[in-house]
């Protein structure tokens, strides 16, 4: 009998810079399987060759590799680049079509959630108002394909914010189980990260990673019933297996105590030094497993409602 466990996965975003330079997809899956994770998350536009129309042979190869490495597709990241200010924008209809195509591709590849990232119209990351009709037009399709649409709650947007309120209102209005929240654990950040993100200006860094949002755990507890997926965002785990930025003990404690049964998918976002993402994901998994064991021992929650890892 397997002990109950959180469901661990890894996003290929963790290996940004390494993919296509030192890691093939096969290598990346071997790496993920080697940390004992069961799930793989991808970025459609980044990890699918000849996106949005991969060759049938590639689709076959994808499924073959999943089988070989014993991995399960988790979340598929997509973008709806509406609100573009540098050229002709997407119409709402085009936005609907973009999301539709990604849901279909995600389903073809076996994913069970999709994260569409919408263009924003404010410094607080309010999504373009067309997000709502675009999602609504795709809810039935998502249901048909068994895919849950999960917009990402990402710093600098906290949980107590009109953006999240609007998403929850949408869930309640439509009553659809195919729309849920994705939590990016960067919102729990307690210390600044000095990691530099290519393409982001100094100002952007100041407004983002250098300003810890420190959302309290009680806010997570409040929305947990609406949470469909968690990206385990982190920047740097040191040589003593300490993460100075993300409060993993509290996060794991909250998820175990409240019976979260979705995925926890590693999203390394520290310095893009070759191979570092791989080393850091391994550290994060060593840390998360030991914290989970401690928390379960402390809380006696080993008999909790979590599904065993498959």
């Amino acid at each position, binding site marked *: 009998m397997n002990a109950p466990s959180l469901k661990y996965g890894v996003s290929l975003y963790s290996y940004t810079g390494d993919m296509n*330079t030192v890691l093939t997809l096969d290598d990346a899956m071997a790496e993920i399987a080697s940390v004992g994770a069961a799930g793989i998350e991808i970025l459609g536009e980044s*990890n699918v060759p000849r996106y949005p129309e991969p060759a049938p042979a590639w689709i076959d190869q994808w499924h073959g590799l999943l089988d070989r490495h014993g991995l399960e597709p988790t979340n598929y990241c997509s973008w709806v680049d509406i609100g573009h200010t540098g050229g002709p924008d997407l119409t709402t209809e085009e936005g609907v079509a973009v999301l539709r195509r990604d849901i279909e591709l995600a389903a073809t590849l076996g994913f069970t959630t999709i994260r569409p*990232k*919408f263009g924003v119209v404010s410094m607080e990351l309010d999504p373009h108002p067309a997000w709502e009709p675009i999602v609504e037009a795709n809810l039935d399709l998502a249901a048909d394909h068994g895919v849950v649409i999960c917009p990402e709650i990402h710093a600098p947007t906290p949980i107590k914010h009109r953006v999240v309120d609007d998403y929850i209102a949408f869930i309640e209005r439509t009553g659809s189980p195919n729309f849920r929240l994705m939590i990016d654990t960067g919102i729990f950040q307690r210390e600044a990260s000095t990691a530099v993100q290519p393409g982001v200006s100094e100002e952007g860094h100041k407004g983002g990673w250098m300003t810890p949002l420190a959302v309290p755990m009680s806010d997570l507890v409040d929305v947990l019933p609406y949470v469909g997926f968690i990206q385990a965002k982190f920047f740097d785990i040191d040589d003593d297996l300490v993460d100075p930025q993300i409060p993993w003990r509290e996060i794991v404690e909250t998820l175990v105590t409240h019976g979260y049964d979705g995925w926890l998918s590693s999203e390394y976002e520290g310095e893009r030094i070759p191979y570092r993402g791989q080393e850091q994901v391994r550290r994060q998994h060593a840390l998360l497993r030991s914290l989970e064991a401690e928390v379960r021992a402390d809380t006696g929650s080993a008999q909790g409602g979590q599904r065993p890892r498959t």
Partner: protein
Amino acid sequence: MLEREIIQNRGVENVVEGGEVTGFRFLVRMPNYRGVFARLIDGIEVRVGDLTWPREVPLWTLGGTQYTLAELKAAHLDVHWDLDEPAVITIPHAGGLAPGIHDIDVEIAIHAPYFPPPFRPSLFPSARKVTVIA
């Protein structure tokens, strides 16, 4: 595999058309963590030594087809720059580059509509010494 550097070592060469050297070309891999449709590409500024070409000048080859920047933006959702496919950047420049070593500097501009408008486009600078073989 692609090289870690954005500007690739392989593929730096002069362009010969009708017996004349009309320019030079080189390869850049996508500098961002995500691939994008052509509509979000805002161009590449190129500098070689004292010479500079602004964003509007370089030609882009993606999927085997060459585009001006304007054509690229108009391609909208029909052309996608993948992470595993370097773009061929062609600079019209009669006579091309002399055989030998050159400093190439680029700044690639890509729109990310999920960033607040003041932070767009994202700029990705990269520089490298490259070699032109006669």
